[in-house]
């Protein structure tokens, strides 16, 4: 099962990763190599097995519905790479 350059580009696009041509080539090889190494997993019969869930917490714990004023809202905005007033600014979204 060879991972093609097209596959790599499709996956890189989904992951929003810019890859150089070299990186593309290398990753195609890496993914191929890694997935081949994992091919043994296909041999395992997993019928009847449920996917794993955390051992000790069977049900989602529920929080009561009270609103708490977040104390650090301003401090969080300070991390913004680009801001206009209290709004985060991003480059234009081309639909």
């Amino acid at each position, binding site marked *: 099962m060879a*991972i093609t350059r097209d*596959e*790599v580009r*499709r*996956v*890189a696009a*989904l*992951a*929003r*990763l*810019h*890859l150089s041509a070299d*990186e593309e080539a290398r*990753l195609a090889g*890496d*993914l191929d*190599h*890694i*997935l081949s*190494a*994992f091919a*043994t*997993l*296909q041999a*395992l019969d*997993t019928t009847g*097995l*449920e*996917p*794993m869930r*955390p*051992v*000790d*917490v069977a049900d*989602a*714990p529920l*929080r009561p519905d009270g609103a708490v004023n977040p104390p*650090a809202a301003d*401090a*969080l905005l*300070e*991390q*913004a*790479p*680009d801001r206009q007033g209290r709004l*985060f600014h*991003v*480059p*234009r*979204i*081309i639909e």
Partner: protein
Amino acid sequence: MAVHAALADLSLREAAARIRTGAMTAVDLVRAVLARCDERDERLGAVLARGDESALAAAEAVDRSLAAGGDVGPLAGVPIGLKDNICTRDLPTTAGSRMLEHFQPAYDATVVERLRAAGAIPVVKLNCDEFAMGSSTENSAFRPTRNPWDPSRVPGGSSGGSAAAVAAGLCAGALGTDTGGSIRLPASFCGVVGVKPSYGRVSRYGVIAYASSLDQVGPVTRDVADAALLLGVIAGHDPRDSTSSPRPTPDFAAALDDGVRGLRIGLPREYFVEGMQPEVETAVRGAVDRLQELGATVTPVTLPHTPYAIATYYLVATAEASSNLARYDGVRYGRRAESSGGVEEMYRTSRGEGFGTEVKRRIMLGTYVLSAGYYDAYYVKAQRARTAIAADFRRAFETCDVLAAPVAPTTAFRLGERLDDPVTMYLSDILTISANLAGIPALSVPCGQDAGGLPVGLQLLGRPFDEATLLRVAAAHEATGDWPERRPPA
């Protein structure tokens, strides 16, 4: 400076006791730790950030409080190092990545809050593989950390900075994280104690996520009793972490000296792999023999699904990681690349520049594994295989109380040795990942050194939430030797 040197070598327990009685001040201890960083970190490369001012201020506060007769916590005045994927509100938190190079959270991780509540003082942020992805700390975007026992070698990873710092005497205790062996492997390579608690024992809130269903925070210390103390401070239910167990935290130190008489130790045959470094096998089997002499019984066990563990781990971990790292998009914090195009270009460029090779590789693998057409064959399959692996352990624990095994097939390898082939690097984890997959607790405790003086770790694995038994066995083993006193060459 000899006085200072001695202070930095004190165990956590001893340091806390002396500060409490006034035999020494917290300020002196913090100064000693900072001085050690000055002296030794240049060679080591373990420290990414230091909080000299904040640590000294906190130390002064502890000293004042004690002088006024106030109540202080069990770790009052004791400086602790934190792996740099653990959020600290007064120190930068980079996760070893250029993506977060200038990030300083406005909040503490829960484990940091608990340390502070116990009086402990976060003093340094410690190097790690980028986003905790790696087994050698060579994937840090900033610099590799060197093994204090041999600077041409890796300290292990991903918590290499934590293990190296404790081994080199920078600080007596540190926190690391373990997703596939990232506390145990560096602990083994650096000759210190490292504990991965049961999944759910310690809160993950504020810990930069790699693989959500596998990550745990744990202590790295010079001896077992310190590990028990530090674990006790950070463990316990956190309402901010929906996967955290509601179980009450036992006193992990209570049974430490109970010995191993009557305990049943299992040796999983699949963990004594072909091609293991002979000295590793000798040291581990020797440790088990000594435990037998102390009254434990030893039985061979089998964990038949072990061959599937590497694939299972990397498929699940990278899938979750690919999703967890999607938030690093340059919009609200972290690195944003200069770009003249629209937002899509900004995403691609910021992430392309901000993430290193291994992180990109794992994001790509994880994205592929989850994508349409592959999800069932890879991700679902791996999650089911996990259940089989967990069942292997359950069965083994029907006849055993703990399992003993090596931590890794070798001692520390050389810097650069395994960077060419990702699969080779991944195989470093082969003996540690199953514990994460099954959610069971496991630790590494030093048990020997190879001919080159490189440490060998003994791995102990236990039943879910039975850290106490692991620590008890580890303490009994530790008492048969002098590993806590061994120091790497200065």
